[in-house]
């Protein structure tokens, strides 16, 4: 289980990147993982079709919060269209820890919130 809570996950959990909110964001969206009550909000500022600024806030387990933190680093400055292609597997690969089926939703909550806010896609990202 030390595997699941590797240094980088704990680092992102305890010192998350891009944590906070944006005043008057272009896009803001919040959702919860009903299973365990994890809550994540993502604020975006868009300029020239790119993510000019991204902030997340919320509370929940280490997996959900670390995953959201990693997600913000991944997409900051990226083209919105490119971000649309980001898959569940991309996030799981990025986390690089063994996520059990019970915890997959924790890991994907950030991506779900981002896609719902940016593209109106409210389904859970599919895993193969």
């Amino acid at each position, binding site marked *: *289980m030390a595997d*699941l809570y590797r240094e980088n996950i*704990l680092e992102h959990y*305890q010192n998350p990147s891009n944590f906070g909110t944006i005043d008057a964001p272009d896009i803001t969206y919040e959702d919860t993982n009903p299973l365990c*009550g*994890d809550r994540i909000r993502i604020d975006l500022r868009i300029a020239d079709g790119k993510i000019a600024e991204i902030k997340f806030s919320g509370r*929940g*387990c*280490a997996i959900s919060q670390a995953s959201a933190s990693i997600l913000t680093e991944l997409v900051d400055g990226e083209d919105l269209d490119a971000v649309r292609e980001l898959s569940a597997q991309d996030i799981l690969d990025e986390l690089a820890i063994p996520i059990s089926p019970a915890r997959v939703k924790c890991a994907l909550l950030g991506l779900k919130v981002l896609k719902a806010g940016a593209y109106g896609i409210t389904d859970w990202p599919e895993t193969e």
Partner: protein
Amino acid sequence: MTHQTQSQHTFDSERVRADFPILGRTARGKRLAYLDSAASTQKPQQVIDAINSFYSESNANVHRGVYELSERSTELYDQARGTIARLINAPDKRQCIFVRNTTEAINLVANSWGRENLKAGDTIVLTMLEHHSNIVPWQVIAQQVGAKIEYVDIDDAGRLRMDQLRELLASGSVKVVATTQVSNTLGTITPLKEITSLAHDAGAIVVADAAQSVPHMQVDVQDLDVDFLAFSGHKMVGPMGIGVLYGKRDLLEAMPPYQTGGSMIREVHLDHTTWADLPEKFEAGTPSVADAVGIAVAADYLSEIGFASIREHEITLTNYALGQLREIPGMTLFGPDGEDRAGVVSFVIDGAHPHDIASILDGEGVAVRAGHHCAQPLMRRLDVTATARASFYIYNTEEDVDQLVSAVETVNSIFGRRAS
């Protein structure tokens, strides 16, 4: 069946463990410490064999056949009901209705008794300790008839505010008090007999959620004078898919059926139907006979150990666990300290989310639950989003507790020190 109420010998949990085949397996490569019996208990070989032997030797539909097998099946079903009646000291076995689980039993009461007896302006009293299954059915019926719901709060220790209950009852509009006998989250044992007496004085009936009490302590429906009582087989070493609703006879007889169709009728005409007597009136369709046989064997199994011994064993383990967990830095424990606490320990640790706690414990072979325990109003009342919960039963030992404590220390070594 012997009906022991006194412990006659010291509790041999190793002998009990030997009856439960699943406890011999490993989890994540470690010894399994199963500490989630409040969610569902494991099953002894005796129960597994009884279900197996029903299907191998006695299976046929009940009531309808005149052939030998159907008679046999009907007789077993009937005997199972008798065993359950003895378990809770029901005056008559026909007052024990077989249902799927506690949830279905409460839905039956809320819909059948509720629809007939509740009207606009009436009050339904619930408590802050309730499981969703003793909240939502009442909310739905309250909306339909225009009744109001009030909640009895808890004090800081997690005990019911009996002063509030008295106040609510004094309004004169309370028709039903629906309360748990043991909280699945805090372990609080509520003073059910006192609640029943207060409610009756105010002209209200009492519906008891006994999902967490019947498996762990002697429950006597006549002594408690409770009007309805619900419990599940799967939390008392019996099978999933069967539960029991006990009700007072006059109430059950005056109630309309909950579900309708086969088995629950006396006569069906083209334009109307008359209902069967108790208990069939409330058992529409083919019942789960094998599971009824299973829950009866489970009841006998527990009675043979004796509920006084079971309770004593759980108190010992709970105190052993509380004593050690209390020493762990960052630990917050919930629930009352004292006689009125069952074998349930809910906790949170600073800096570690309950789901992370449960994942780390899982890695050490320790099965606990993390989440809202189907008690979201209680979570909000406690001002937490979730807790981790360990719950103890007859097959748990101090070794399970030691494994839990050492796994919780691992949580702190992963999260605790870094949080500073």
